[in-house]
């Protein structure tokens, strides 16, 4: 059960050398990075740019990213916008409901650290990383679609260099 859990150890044991595991590693990582299904989920202004990114001009589908509404089917959650305290608990819950290899991309200033609302925003969570672990921060307010794509490519790089099963979960 959960070979990926256990292989974690074996990778360390064999360290550099076990070709099967490394190439397996590569395949698995490749598959994870090129089929990141995204949670159909937007928060604020950044969500509009996220939508624009998935629309024809920038086409997230090229990266194998398709929106799925249910958290059970998704791999990545794009926190696109201002996270308020009221919403934070819900996001945490949604994040919890995602199955294991899962990634978070924080998009825009608000999700990074409260953005323009960091000073006086009594109801804004100052950074989504206070609630859930973040893999990549994309700056911008809102980030251009290209910037989001660049963030996703960064995330792909991160996954590519992962060893088996050492994902954030």
């Amino acid at each position, binding site marked *: 059960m959960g070979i*990926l859990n256990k292989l974690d150890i074996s990778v360390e044991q064999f360290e550099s050398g076990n070709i099967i595991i490394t190439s397996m590693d590569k*395949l*698995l990582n*490749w*598959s*994870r990075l*090129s*089929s990141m299904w995204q949670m*159909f989920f937007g928060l604020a202004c950044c969500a509009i740019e996220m939508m624009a990114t998935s629309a*024809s001009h920038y*086409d997230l*589908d*090229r*990266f*194998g990213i*398709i929106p*799925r*509404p*249910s958290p*059970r*089917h998704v*791999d990545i959650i794009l926190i696109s916008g201002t996270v308020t305290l009221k919403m934070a608990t819900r996001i945490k819950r949604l994040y919890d*409901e995602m*199955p*294991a*290899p899962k990634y978070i991309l924080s998009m825009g200033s608000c999700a990074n650290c409260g953005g323009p609302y960091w000073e006086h925003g009594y109801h804004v969570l100052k950074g989504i990383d206070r609630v859930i672990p973040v893999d990549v921060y994309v700056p911008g307010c809102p980030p251009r679609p290209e910037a989001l794509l660049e963030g996703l490519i960064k995330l792909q790089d991160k996954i590519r260099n992962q060893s088996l099963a050492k994902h954030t979960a």
Partner: protein
Amino acid sequence: MGNILTQWLGDNLLTYILIPVPVLVWVLVFALYAVLGERKVSAWMQNRIGPNRTDKFGLLQTILDVVKLIQKELIIPNRADRLYFRIAPYIVFTATFMGYAILPFSSVYIGVDLNLGLFYFFAITSLSVIGVLMAGWASNNKYSLFGGMRTVAQIVSYEIPTALSALVVVMLAGTLSMQKFAEIQSGGILNWYIFGGPGSVIKIVLIPIMVVSAVILFISTLAETNRTPFDLTEADSELVAGVHIEYSGMMFAMFFLAEYAQMFAVSGVVTTLFLGGWQSPFGDLVPFLNTPVFQVFWFLAKSLFLVFVMMWLRWTLPRVRIDQLMTMCWKFLIPITLVNLFLVGLYIILT
């Protein structure tokens, strides 16, 4: 049995076990590339490109999707009913796959040529209803339950127009064997049942009836496979993802697989009934095009065209509401098919 594998391998148990394998392989390949195709078709219709980062044309995309899905954690929610939650995907996929048994891929390759073929197909595919209901109920999620219920109501009521419009062909052909349907329609495009089937010139009167029947059959199979505009069961804008909501990883993939498998299965049936099955459209004019290998090609081409039409519709139309769906069935499809049935009966008696 007329099966090519029996001829090659002889009549032993191994052969019989091997017969379904090509079909299974085809289902898998088809499902993988239909998903990709769907994404590509939608992309083209929307002036996009579609998956192309994995390789130049994104051909590996869905394979990688599957590899990824294998790595996903399988979650069974606490509140779910564990046993039936697990069983449901089996039933859904098996019911669909068993339907493939009677699809005549060519004159020599068919899973099994039951003489009750068509009847069997309708019966066995309706089994998936139970699986969906099980999944919806066992997830213990309101959206799932709603989705499950809707699917059942939808599939169950559309079974009637499906069967009734298929009966038109059965009446003309006088058989239920899928292989015979295909055989009867030999001799070129004009002998397909959508153009009235083989017969003398008087069959012209049949053509409108048959076209209407074919369209109705297509529409109701569309509804049975839960495709847009009838995809109420997983309507994202209302029910989030319907019965699939709580399924993750491979279990979800099975539902997905079943959906696409069913798309091809019903297209295959429509093809066999109305579009001449594996018959070449040129009939015997070009005998070369009617060899078994080409037959497979024709069958796949026709079915895939129907699958394409399904996708085309999906990316064009909004979705209907549940009561409109039901009204459409009871108010439009069933009366029209009944009238069709009557007219064809009259035609047969009069000729």
